[in-house]
């Protein structure tokens, strides 16, 4: 049977040699190499559950009066988008499961991407010949954050609207052309024309997913073209890769991971409530709720907006750069610029333009590890500042006191972390498990 199928395919496409090579492609083994795969499988679940949701969701801002099964909303004027999202949660069987799984998958997707990015950074996997893979990956992180934001914005609940109001003011704050861009995107001053909902919707269900699919394909193909990196070890050299072949060894492993990811996401989607939009209510410009938190991957931006001292750059009576620009636009731009520029910075500073197939252990590149940890701690401080209102509610620590603390920490922590991590790396290298203690074969 298999042989006949292969013959059929080969006679019509000549792909048998390619397939055979693919089946014997070598995957080096390390748990941290699975983070990217987790992100990939989350994406698959996102597409599958997302398609299901589009069959019921109605992306329209037309007003309607709610008379569904959720009594507290009876008689409330809501948009079709909001009503259909509530209805697909309460009336459509398995709808709530799919919606919550979709939302959880988005959150886990970004966790996996960020951890994967850190793994690649701290092991130096981004170096030539894989810097292109790195750029594509960082671009996908940006897309994924925007895609997630669009996803919970199209529902038109109160949190959606608050997030969009903030996004609008960040776009407005862009120097010189901010107001023009905002009017282009929204079609009119906030909350925008009815066309704005359609624009978000097509971007969320088509444009961004297609872009992500293209970039994922480029990402994977360009890894396969240069093969995976590996940690140094017995037989693992710059010239030879050691690991498990796709078939028969790796396929059940990766399928196990795929089904495991699906299991976790559907269990979360079924058992752990997320984004109960019927409790938030529909968005109105004049409404906002206290203690609102965005999905976790936007926490660093809300933190950036909160930490900025209150000033607009102004000349006389005219505003030039409004405040949201710093925390909402410049801060993420700086972080992403750092990520995009790092492979170049590192090869310039170290003068290392060689090909690298062997990974560094983080301790073996103290300078890179320390810089990475410093930048990460900087972003983490701002991220935590985004949750300071919750900390106030839980622990009764003064909100303004926290803001001043985080403002200071954003400057101090990166320096301290840099010095500490560099020292830690040096200490580890001298310890019994240091680089001298390991077999490391370098091939000329």
């Amino acid at each position, binding site marked *: 049977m298999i042989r006949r199928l292969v013959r059929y395919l080969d006679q019509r496409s000549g792909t048998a040699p390619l397939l055979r090579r693919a089946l014997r492609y*070598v995957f080096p083994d390390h748990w941290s190499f699975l983070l990217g795969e987790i992100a990939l499988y989350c994406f698959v679940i996102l597409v599958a559950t997302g398609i299901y949701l589009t069959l019921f969701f109605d992306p329209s801002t037309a007003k309607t009066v709610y008379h569904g099964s959720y009594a507290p909303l009876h008689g409330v004027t809501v948009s079709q988008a909001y009503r259909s999202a509530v209805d697909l949660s309460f009336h459509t069987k*398995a709808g709530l*499961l799919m919606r*919550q799984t979709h939302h959880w998958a988005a959150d886990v997707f970004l966790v996996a991407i960020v951890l994967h990015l850190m793994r690649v950074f701290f092991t130096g996997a981004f170096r030539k010949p894989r810097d292109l893979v790195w750029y594509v990956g960082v671009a996908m992180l940006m897309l994924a954050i925007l895609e997630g934001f669009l996803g919970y914005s199209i529902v038109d609940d109160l949190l959606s609207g608050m997030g969009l*109001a*903030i996004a609008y003011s960040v776009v*407005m*704050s862009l*120097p*010189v052309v*901010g*107001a*023009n861009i905002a009017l*282009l*995107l*929204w079609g009119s*001053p906030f909350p925008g024309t009815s066309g704005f909902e359609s*624009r978000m919707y097509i971007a969320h269900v088509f444009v961004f997913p297609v872009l992500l699919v293209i970039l994922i394909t480029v990402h994977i193909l360009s890894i396969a073209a*240069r093969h995976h990196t590996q940690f140094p070890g017995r*037989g693992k050299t710059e*010239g*030879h890769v*050691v*690991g498990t072949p796709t078939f028969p*060894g790796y396929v*059940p492993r990766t*399928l*196990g991971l795929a089904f495991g990811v*699906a*299991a*976790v*996401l559907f*269990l979360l*989607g*079924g*058992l752990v409530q997320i984004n109960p939009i019927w409790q938030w209510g529909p968005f*109105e*410009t*004049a*409404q*906002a709720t*206290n203690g609102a938190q965005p999905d976790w991957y936007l926490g660093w931006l809300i933190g950036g907006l*909160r*930490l900025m001292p*209150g000033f*607009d750059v102004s000349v006389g*009576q*005219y*505003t*030039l*750069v*409004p*405040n*949201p620009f710093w925390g909402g636009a410049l801060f993420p731009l700086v972080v992403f610029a750092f990520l995009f520029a790092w492979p170049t910075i590192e090869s310039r500073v170290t003068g290392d333009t060689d*090909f690298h197939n062997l990974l560094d252990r983080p301790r073996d590149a103290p300078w890179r590890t320390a810089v990475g940890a410093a930048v990460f701690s900087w972003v983490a401080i701002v991220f935590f500042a985004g949750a300071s*209102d919750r900390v106030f509610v839980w622990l009764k620590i003064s909100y*303004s006191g926290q803001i001043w603390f985080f403002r200071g920490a954003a400057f101090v922590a990166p320096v301290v972390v840099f010095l500490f991590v560099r020292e830690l790396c040096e200490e580890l290298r001298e310890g019994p498990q240091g680089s001298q203690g390991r077999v490391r*074969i*370098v*091939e000329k």
Partner: protein
Amino acid sequence: MIDRLIAFLVLLFARGKRRRTEPLDRLVPEAPAQRPWELVAAALLFLAMLSAAAFVPIYAIDSLGHIQTQLLGLSLGLAFAFVAAACVVFAKRLVPQETVVEPYPAPETEHEQERLGELVAESGDGLTRKRLLKFAGAGAGAALGAALLTPAASLGPFIDVAQLRKTAWRRGVRLVDDFGDPIPAKRVHVGSFLTAYPEGADHDALGSPLVVVRLRIQDLQLPEARAGWAPGGIVAYSKICTHAGCAIALYRAPLFEPTSSRPALVCPCHYSTFDPAAGGKVLFGPAGRNLPQLPLEIDGEGNLHAAGTFSGPPGPSWWGVRFR
């Protein structure tokens, strides 16, 4: 020397793992029979089947009510978990365990690079006016690009930023509540908090919603130019934060005067805090300019109406907006 050592290691490594006993023509090493593990895998797949099969009745039985979602998730999640476990048994116990050594692809193919360069160079050999053609090509490309981008201008009236300043508030416009009813001044008490809109206008426009509070007249510290703006101590401000456009949904009203902080209007998004007694001055937080104030009057029927328009543009700022 190291090369040979590696070659030796690689051979030794690969040999030991792959070709110990099996005949030469095998591609994959023979896996020893693992009958108990086959049973385990079969059992796991069977459990997955049961779990997944339960999905259908759970879906069909409506009387499950509020726990239907949880049971659906449990059944699907467990089914996936059992399949995942079966895959792991396959991977670790049932398929041949092999470690393969393979050379990395050559870092580059210099010869091909040169040939490619030559290919392009030789193809253009016959051209005598390269610069002219480059300019012509660039011009055509730029013009075509501009033409193709032009329809994007239909997305919004992006030149006319003056409309961002528009509000429905002008002298004589009555304040109404959520239901469209006028607001008598006596409905506004010290310590309470009211949202109001311009009568007959779109409630959702950024320039519409107001927050209305009453302060004791002796507590007011309005700028001199706004002396008559607060009849009976009632002040009205734009409800949209000048920082990031959220609604000013919190009012910090003093509960016990000797120890309480002064009254403040607070935005719950980034906690910009404004002083209603002092003309909406920023007390704390990231807002860069004061909250626009609306002058009020009380008409003959005792209802509140606007005595003019806002003291500044409501909502978030943009490049070049005049804020006073």
